[in-house]
């Protein structure tokens, strides 16, 4: 097990990308300093953050003098450097399924809910259209995911151990169910997985409302 240096995570409480990394850090038992970047206010353009991450994306991980941007890159970096609680099975086919699920979430769903895109649509077409479009996209991708999971999900997304697929699914499901109140009755496997994730301490601790920058209600 690699010695843990000082880890710092630049994160926004509601960002599903940051949420993935928080889950990963928790699963691997890695302590980290939480640095909030309010992407709605535009903190990602502040000179201090730009110095760390000129790409201005959240999340960013600092590990000693290594800076990694992008949740996919961060999670795979953590997986290799801190192999405890591995997120990828040895079996090549199961490993590929985990990557496929993660990829569908990160390129098939998340970009569609990105608030810059959403604001653009709302501006052009109004709030109702925006919501209708959202639901349409979520349904399209969830239908595909449900079919895929039908072939491989058991206790978790790919088999009985938590894997990369779960790390990417959980924040997405959290977002659509808790923030969007989406009707999941057509997606029993996804709904069941969401319920399972809600029971796991490492996932609970990573939930948006438990972050230091979550607004107190």
């Amino acid at each position, binding site marked *: 097990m690699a010695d843990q240096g000082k880890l710092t995570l630049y994160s926004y409480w509601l960002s599903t990308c940051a949420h993935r990394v928080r889950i990963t850090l928790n699963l691997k038992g890695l302590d980290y300093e939480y640095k909030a970047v309010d992407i709605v206010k535009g903190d990602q353009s502040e000179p201090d953050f730009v110095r760390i991450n000129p*790409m201005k994306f959240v999340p960013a991980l600092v590990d000693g003098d290594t800076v990694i941007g992008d949740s996919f*890159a961060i999670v795979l970096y953590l997986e290799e450097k801190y192999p405890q609680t591995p997120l990828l099975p040895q079996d090549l086919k199961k490993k*590929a399924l985990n*990557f*496929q699920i993660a990829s569908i979430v990160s390129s098939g769903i998340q970009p569609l809910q990105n608030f810059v895109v959403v604001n653009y649509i709302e501006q052009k077409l109004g709030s109702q259209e925006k919501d209708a479009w959202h639901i349409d996209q979520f349904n399209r991708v969830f239908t595909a995911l449900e079919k895929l999971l039908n072939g491989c999900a058991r206790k978790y997304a790919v088999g009985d151990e938590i894997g990369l697929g779960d790390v990417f699914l959980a924040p997405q499901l959290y977002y659509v169910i808790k923030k969007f109140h989406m009707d999941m009755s057509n997606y029993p496997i996804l709904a069941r997985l969401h319920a399972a994730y809600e029971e796991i301490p490492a996932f609970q601790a990573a939930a948006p409302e438990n972050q230091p920058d979550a607004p107190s209600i």
Partner: protein
Amino acid sequence: MALESIEPQKLKLYNYWRSSCSQRVRIALNLKGLDYEYKAVDLSKDEQFDPEYEKLNPVKYVPTLVDGEVVVADSFAIILYLEEKYPQHPLLPKDLKKKALNIQIASIVTSTIQPRQNLPVEIDFIEGRFDLDKKLLWAQHYLNKGFTALEKLIKDCAGKYATGDEIQMADVFLEPQIHAGITRFEIDMSKFPTLARLHEAYMKIPEFQAAVPEIQQDAPRGS
């Protein structure tokens, strides 16, 4: 003792000439010297919805790779699978930081740029609701934004290629996106000198040349 030589089953790649996701995998297969059978799935005729294809890949995207009994879908998953199963011409460096950089570049292409131009998603929606020429503006806006971010990221780490002097995963993901930007979305590459230089370099490499959309067997004549 006579040994039966068992011909390894040829890889099959279900893909579409113009799909940049498919092009990534074609490049990776070529770089690793892996022969494959080209199985065309015509997205313009909705062939991805054929029951036969759906049985193979319930998600109905391209590309899908068949390697004997193993079926792998999604270009990211396929390339990481190939990287592990066929380690010749490795596409990821051993150094963790450089590896992360390659994944980051690939991820920027797949999650912030390519989805913006992706055929079924936004074009259909936009064509239905927006003017036809706004569709191009939409794609251009996000391609320019994405290329600006990539240019910033790569400027300081590029060598002969995107992350050094060897072809790596980042290059495999970059070239199809740059190609699409130039041929389909009229992106002005003079704004992105590093990306433009890389594109010129890729076009000198046979493995990249052979993967170009317009010369694939299912490309329409006169592409």
